[in-house]
């Protein structure tokens, strides 16, 4: 774009200087602006048009999700998981993200989004491989089209853009949905991803779960923007502001954004206003940076309770349905507990297996060294392993 003088920036002292070239915004920003208030369905008149099947489906998944969070948190206390960043309180965002996608689409989760991955079909134990520490990520991303859980903040967002762009270039109507937290919106990769997505009109949906805190730092210290959804306008894509605890509202907004992307309408930024009920992880002390009263306010706006009210009004919250849902959640937890309590079978030689397609001579030598160390360890005399591998042989004249 042409570089223009700013109005009033200088006094015109040259008779040769003409008027500045005309300028107008490239895009009318008004249609891109998000709503002033987060979009809600539950508790409003609009809830009446919601499909009961969708509501019961969302409910079952939310309850299972909460149970999964509770079980995984318990596993950290038993030492079975190195760490678990719970998404309790944010289940509506997680479930909606998974359900809004079709099978051919791709999900790009962050480290807090194991639940979205499980809801999309990933084995609950495989979803925890990274957090247990037996491998990094570990699952096959192609199986359910779920990118590896991403620990660095926002770095998976450009991947989502690139994948969606590549799919479109290859003629596939595939959409990528990428998840990030409020803290992640401050990272450079967030901005570069949004810019590329808008420039390429890539079929991507960015879901920001604004849960109030980046570990201990509140949103007010993270951004001066009116809302995170407002950030979309600067890149030339629409921003949507949604109540992240309203599962059907989340589902509707994400589904619309996915469909829009699939139709060639380009990317959307969705900000879900939600709250992290638990601490950042089991290693965090949330009482140092927020009050119990604040947490209680959000507990009263619980995503499961909100949905229960609507189901009860429709007389769908029967004992049988609630009992079946609870049983399904308990089965999930029991299966997770049982399988996580079995020690994973680890082969140390795998350390060398997936570095390059073809192992280098250096890695072959190091693998031989480890093999010798393992053999010596098995034979009970570790000292023999010293110098067994590597270059010892070659060093002799």
């Amino acid at each position, binding site marked *: 774009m042409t570089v223009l003088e700013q109005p009033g920036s200088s006094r015109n002292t040259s008779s040769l200087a003409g008027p500045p070239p005309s300028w107008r915004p490239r895009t009318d920003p008004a249609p891109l602006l998000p709503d002033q208030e987060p979009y809600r369905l539950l508790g409003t008149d609009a809830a009446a048009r919601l499909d009961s099947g969708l509501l019961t489906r969302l409910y079952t998944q939310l309850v299972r999700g909460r149970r999964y969070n509770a079980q995984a948190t318990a596993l950290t206390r038993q030492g079975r998981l190195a760490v678990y960043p719970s998404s309790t309180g944010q289940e509506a965002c997680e479930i909606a993200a998974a359900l809004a996608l079709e099978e051919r689409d791709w999900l790009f989760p962050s480290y807090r989004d194991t639940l979205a991955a499980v809801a999309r079909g990933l084995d609950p134990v495989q979803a925890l491989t990274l957090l247990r520490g037996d*491998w*990094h*990520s*570990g*699952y*096959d*991303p*192609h199986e359910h089209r779920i*990118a*590896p859980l991403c620990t*660095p903040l926002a*770095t998976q*967002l*450009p*991947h*989502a*853009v*690139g*994948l*969606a*762009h*590549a*799919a479109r*270039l*290859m003629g596939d109507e*595939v959409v*990528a949905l990428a998840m990030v937290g409020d803290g992640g919106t401050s990272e*450079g*990769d967030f901005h*570069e*991803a949004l*810019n*590329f997505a808008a*420039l390429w009109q890539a079929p991507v949906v960015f879901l920001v779960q604004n849960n109030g805190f980046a570990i201990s730092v509140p949103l007010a210290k993270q951004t001066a923007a009116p809302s995170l959804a407002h950030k979309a306008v600067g890149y030339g894509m629409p921003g949507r502001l949604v109540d992240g605890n309203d599962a059907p509202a989340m589902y509707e907004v994400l589904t619309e954004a996915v469909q829009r992307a699939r139709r060639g309408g380009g990317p959307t930024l969705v900000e879900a206003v939600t709250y992290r009920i638990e601490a950042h992880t089991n290693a965090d002390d949330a009482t140092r940076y927020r009050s119990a009263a604040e947490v209680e306010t959000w507990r009263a706006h619980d995503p499961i309770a909100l949905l229960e009210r609507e189901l009860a009004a429709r007389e769908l919250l029967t004992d049988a349905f609630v009992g079946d849902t609870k049983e399904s959640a308990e089965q999930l937890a029991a299966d997770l507990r049982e399988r996580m309590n079995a020690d994973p079978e680890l082969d140390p030689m*795998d350390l060398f*297996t*997936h*570095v*390059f*397609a073809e192992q*280098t*001579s*250096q890695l072959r030598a190091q693998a031989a060294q480890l093999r010798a160390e393992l053999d010596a360890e098995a034979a009970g005399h570790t000292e023999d392993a010293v110098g067994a591998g*590597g*270059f010892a042989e*070659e*060093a*002799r*004249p």
Partner: protein
Amino acid sequence: MTTTVPATARKPATMAQALTRAMRDAMADDPSVHVMGEDVGTLGGVFRVTDGLAKEFGEDRCTDTALAEAGILGTAVGMAMYGLRPVVEMQFDAFAYPAFEQLISHVAKMRNRTRGALTMPLTIRVPYGGGIGGVEHHSDSSEAYYLATAGLQVVTPATVEDAYGLLRAAIASDDPVVFLEPKRLYWSKADWSPDAPTEVAPLGRAAVRRRGSSATLITYGPSLPVCMEAAEAARSEGWDLEVVDLRSLMPFDDDTVCASVRRTGRAVVVHESNGFGGPGGEIAARITERCFHHLEAPVLRVAGFDIPYAPPMLERHHLPGVDRILDTVARLQWESDRTDGGGE
């Protein structure tokens, strides 16, 4: 400098032209090869290395991107996840630094994280090194950063022929390659046949560029022509120098290096990048560990000084030149019965 191209259909070609041809041929052979970066399309790259690719293959295959290195590499990761083979240009060595997180946390590790399920057939082209009079941030030798990261292949051509062969090999590789292009050799010419390109050079194999018996100069990329010149000059001093061009720093060709040093008994490693923490230290250590009993002298290094890259008007003092190499070679007179040459 001469190359060993067959005599048929030879004509003068520059390294830049050979690189262009390598991308062109790779794109023609494989529709999944995509070139992307800032200015690579309409302009043909600031060094014109991507000249004509957008015109021939369209803007979807040779894409001018926004000015954002992390975004360029990050989106390329996603494209590779979907089955494309992106060839990414980082316009200058120091411009690649914003993309380091993508490179180190994702490009280098994706195969490992996914137990081989996701591969990263990415080529990251980085024009690097000094000697073109570039201002600050335009002349860094950044190879040590890449070498410190497991999972990256690091390749650097020094001849026109290798520029073609190694770039073809890099693009064909299923693992990521940081392809360091010595920018001061872009305009170096050789008799090379673009119409009958030589075979794709295997990655991880060094080349002996000059046979000799007194000592081995081990080098790569921009320092190869300097070493060849030094080897010629050393003849009058009675030194018959062998010159090994590593071509690929990772994988590292221990065999070729060790075979040469065992033959000559003396070794000097030559590179532009800082000596402290630079590749020369690793190479010297490898030689010492493997060839100690063959060595007649300590392995010496000729490297750039341990300073932030010199301003252009002073860079000739920073870059290893023929004289500094010859002075160092003279110091190899270690417990030797030779009487010529210098020494400490």
